[in-house]
């Protein structure tokens, strides 16, 4: 028996619904599916670093709050569960990572993955090099497997093509 195809769908805030919908239409029924989310470590780093400039003003009497990485982790679990439900595949494996997003995605698909489904996330109004965000660009360049690049919303029409160069 042929081993089943293994597909990873990269779930990102802002584009995940469209990405999951496109994947649902495109992936074969027998494929093993995993949903991947990476929490960026740099955003919590920005928030954690800002108090350095206050030189000790820390609001010692404030309400206790959850550490930001925990808040982000809980939100990521929710998002993956919502994505599995939208995909209609409760058997999907949920992969949660934290770090530099683009590198973690490439590492997550380094072994035994046949296809990575990625949503475009760049500037929709200027199709060209900038229609892929920097992290997506990195993943498309470095992923050691086939990449299915999907539009998170409606694909552009043929009229979006610029006129051909003269001469």
């Amino acid at each position, binding site marked *: 028996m042929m081993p089943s195809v293994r597909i990873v769908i990269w779930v990102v805030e802002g584009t995940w619904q469209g990405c999951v919908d496109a994947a649902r239409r495109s992936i074969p029924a027998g494929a093993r599916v995993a949903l991947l989310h990476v929490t960026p470590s740099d955003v919590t780093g920005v928030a954690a*670093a800002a108090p350095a*400039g206050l030189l000790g003003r820390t*609001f010692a009497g404030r309400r206790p709050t959850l550490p930001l990485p925990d808040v982000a982790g809980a939100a990521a679990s929710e998002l993956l569960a919502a994505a599995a439900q939208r995909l209609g595949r409760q058997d999907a494996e949920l992969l949660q990572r934290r770090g530099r997003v683009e590198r973690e995605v490439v590492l997550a698909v380094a072994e035994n993955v046949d296809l990575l489904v990625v949503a475009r996330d760049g500037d929709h109004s200027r199709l060209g090099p900038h229609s892929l965000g920097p992290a997506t660009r990195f993943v498309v360049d470095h992923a050691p497997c086939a990449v299915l690049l999907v539009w998170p919303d409606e694909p552009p029409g043929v009229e979006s093509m610029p006129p051909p160069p003269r001469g």
Partner: protein
Amino acid sequence: MPSAIAETLSGLLLVATLVCAIIRPRGLPEALVAVPAAGLLLLFGVLPLSEAAAEARSLAPTIGFLAAVLLLATFADRFGLFEAAGSWMATGSRGRPVTLLALVFAVASTVTAVLSLDATVVLLTPVVFATVARLHLRSKPPVYACTHLANSASLLLPVSNLTNLLAFSASGLSFARFGATMALPWLAAIAVEWLVLRRFFAADLIGHAEASAVPRRPAPVYACLVLGLTLLGFFLTSVFDVAPAFAALGGAIALGIPLLRSGRTTVRDVALAIQVPFLAFVLALGLVVKALSIHGLGSLVTHLVPGGTSLGSLLLIALVAAVLANLINNLPAVLLLLPAVVGAGAGPVLAVLIGVNAGPNLTYVGSLATLLWRRVLRQRGEELPISEFMRLGALTVPPVLVAATVALWISLRVVG
């Protein structure tokens, strides 16, 4: 003591004071090095007792005012003001990321102006982060907006930034006049930040969220009312020639009593919220900088900073202030620069504030703090995206400095 040695000693003690305040080894209070440093300078006669007494007298009202503002923000947090703001932003955005960013701009600018940048950094930013995470939108643009606006939107009122409080008492401006003159520069700075951030993060401002994902929190009406009256009080005190610190103190008492009565805060929490070690640190830092100032650096700074209120002079002052704030930190920068500009009237003092407040967005939180803090964060498993932050800083800080200073120049001619 020869002046060169005195200057070197004060310089070394300033660096030691700042380094200790930023890394705070083993969580020790920031005053631990600052207070003995000031004591040492007094003991060796580097700082004459009469000068120290005069500096302490001029800093005392500012330190009292700061204590009251810190209390006000802590109590507002206890009333759930920031959670309510998070829920309001989520509902108001209707799940649209650009609208959400606009509301974060409005809230962060207001919180910074009224309750100080400290409140935005420590109390509002975590709430914004949690709100955006629950909406499953990308958190980078709103979090960067908070950290940037904490600096650049702290121009409006004396209470918005400790640097403003220090300059306010030295400038002789009334609270109302300060606010009226800085309103236009404040708006100019926020407008520039919006234009740049909106474009810089265009790829991250996508998608749509269910606004109902964030639990609804009712606005704490009583706390909002007290804060509104406190703000009004700030302006009224200047009419009746009363120190505006009393308005802040009144607001803090009005918020603190119901909290204490209902057990939502304790006397211990209140004592912690005043942050006595930090107040001691400010006083000691003031003395250390004073010693450095009277032994040569003061005349060097006076030489660097132009007098006059022409647009060119104001721009140059803002630039010098921004560079100095990035080299050391904005607190010692403003303490060093104030004596040089305070005789020249309101314009140069306010230009210094534009530089020291908006400038630190360039090297994150001042280069010294960034260098030291990076290691602390690495140990905690956090990553500081230094190149991205500095790229955004390089795109925002120069236009913010120019726009705000031009706005100040216009304001000085209109408000007088």
